[in-house]
């Protein structure tokens, strides 16, 4: 256990170093140096750059004239809200549909679900978002077209998580502001969750089916254990490993997707902020945004690795 943790941390360190090299190259593109370096040597400056990063000085945005780290932290909660809901939707619905599909293997429900999931994972997210807007916002009028909250609500950004902030204003608006925020959140979250949901559903199905073929399941069945208990208790836990692995990839897919989704729904999060920085060539913000988002991805993957090790004792032995 300890050795494999150590190996993970080593990999993590290498990843972070590689990442900072990339963002350092990005920061060099800026016309005005983003930090005051003492050394004139580009390689020595890299180490100074690392020092600045560790001290929390991520440079000053050339367009907003504000600290990049502060800007990032202000925009990040909006993205976290979106990502968290999308990920929850993707994992719960994906798992559920996959289990349902596997337990009705070969039936019409299985076929329909697997065809839809194939359609889901071939769907270009930018087009999917626009289709959903066309159907649910413009034609049916069920959801707002863009933004996080209607203008009539005046919410102080305490935490910058709109769902929490609106609840904190409960005495002013009751639950109306909260519901309005939730209402704005639904369509972007559905857009973002569709592709990962489809992939998780397929993975769950095939992984569960593979496990259900094994000898110990046959033993359990011959002992007269109910089908439901076999799937939920005996099958699922052992099928989780590949699902967890694929979920790590989904985080990276969601991080790509969130940029596009925020662009479509004018969602004031990190993706929209980053795209604006790219189009206005604000390299301080670009390097900060890329760095921060990648750290999030790395942290997520690390957490999933630990979860896999926890769930699968065989992984505790270093290979």
């Amino acid at each position, binding site marked *: 256990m300890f050795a494999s943790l150590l190996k993970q941390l080593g*990999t993590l360190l*290498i*990843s972070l170093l*590689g*990442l900072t090299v*990339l963002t350092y*190259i*990005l920061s060099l*593109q800026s016309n005005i140096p983003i930090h005051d370096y003492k050394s004139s040597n580009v390689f020595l400056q890299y180490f100074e750059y690392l020092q600045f990063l560790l001290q929390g000085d991520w440079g000053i945005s050339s367009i907003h004239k504000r600290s990049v780290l502060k800007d990032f932290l202000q925009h990040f909660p909006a993205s976290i809200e979106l990502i968290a809901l999308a990920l929850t939707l993707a994992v719960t619905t994906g798992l559920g549909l996959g289990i349902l599909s596997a337990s009705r293997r070969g039936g019409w429900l299985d076929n329909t679900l697997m065809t839809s999931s*194939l*359609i889901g*994972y*071939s*769907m*270009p*997210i*930018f*087009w999917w978002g*626009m*289709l959903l*807007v*066309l159907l649910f916002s*413009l034609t049916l009028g069920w959801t707002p077209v863009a933004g996080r909250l209607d203008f009539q609500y005046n919410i102080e950004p305490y935490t910058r998580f709109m769902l929490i902030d609106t609840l904190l204003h409960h005495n002013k608006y009751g639950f109306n502001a909260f519901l309005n925020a939730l209402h704005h959140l639904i369509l972007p979250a559905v857009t973002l969750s569709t592709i990962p949901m489809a992939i998780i559903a397929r993975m769950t199905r*095939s992984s569960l*089916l*593979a496990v259900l*073929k094994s000898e110990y399941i046959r033993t359990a069945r011959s002992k007269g254990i109910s089908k439901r208990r076999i799937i939920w208790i005996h099958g699922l836990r052992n099928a989780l490993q590949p699902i967890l692995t694929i979920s790590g990839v989904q985080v*990276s*897919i*969601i*991080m*790509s*997707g969130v*940029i*596009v989704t925020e*662009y479509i729904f004018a969602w004031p999060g990190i993706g929209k902020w*980053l*795209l604006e*920085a*790219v*189009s206005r*060539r604000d*390299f301080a913000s*670009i390097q900060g945004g*890329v760095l921060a*988002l*990648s750290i999030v*991805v*790395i942290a997520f*993957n690390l957490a999933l690795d630990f979860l896999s090790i926890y769930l699968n004792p065989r992984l505790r032995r270093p290979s």
Partner: protein
Amino acid sequence: MRKSLVTANQKAAWVIYKQNKGALIGSVILALILLMALTGPWLAPYDPAHQFSNKVLVPPIWNSAGDFDYFFGTDDLGRDLLSRLLYGARLSLQLTLTVVVTAAITGIIIGAASAFLNPTLRSLLMRIMDLLLSFPSLLLAIAIVAIIGPGLPNAIYAVIIVLIPQFVRITQSAISDELNKDYVMAAKLDGAKRFRLLTHHVWPNIVPALIVQLTFSFSTALLDIAALGFLGLGAQPPMAEWGTMLSESRAFIQFAPWTMTLPGVAIFLTVLSINLVGDGIRDALDPRLNR
């Protein structure tokens, strides 16, 4: 002897592929799209950039207000959508092909060359590849476009760079799997040099894995190129690129939904058919997998 064995395998793979309904449907759609891309300039009724200024936002013919001169209608500048989609098919597929072939050749060469490296260097190289792989692909592409500047050629370079690590990784891991097998040991004892081992013994056995990776790379590349175009970082208007066309249609979703649905359908059908074909090929080449 070896040759006849490979053909037998290929025959078996073809038999499995033929039985896969999805793969057959995918092949037919893909063949049609390829045909459209190849014959697009002859099929297209108009120049894709020509603006019929008195025919702005004409709906497609299935709409009662449609005009038979413009089968799929026109966009906000009065350009014929059918012509733009046909030229777009040509452009998008050309770009995708360029990207995938370049990335595959580069990646396979790096991956194969790493078999000659010393283990420490190889492991360092693979860590770097893992790092690049763990990056969200669009974020990496955006970061690269940010360094070299927006525009079509740069977006293409970015997508190539994003795809290379996948090929390096799969080539390297397939080779190292094969190198541990008995038949390689036998060839080694027979006096085969490392280069000959790779080209004559290992290579034929890793080709299936590479083909599968290659097919799925087509859909990734197509999607990433279109996404960059959509975000305004890739192909620029007035180019008839599917992602850029979608981006231009954003302002007219409500009044002219066809300007948005049609390019989207084109991207979606292409990606779907590639994925269907890819699934079929994977199942056919690896019969041990569950179906």
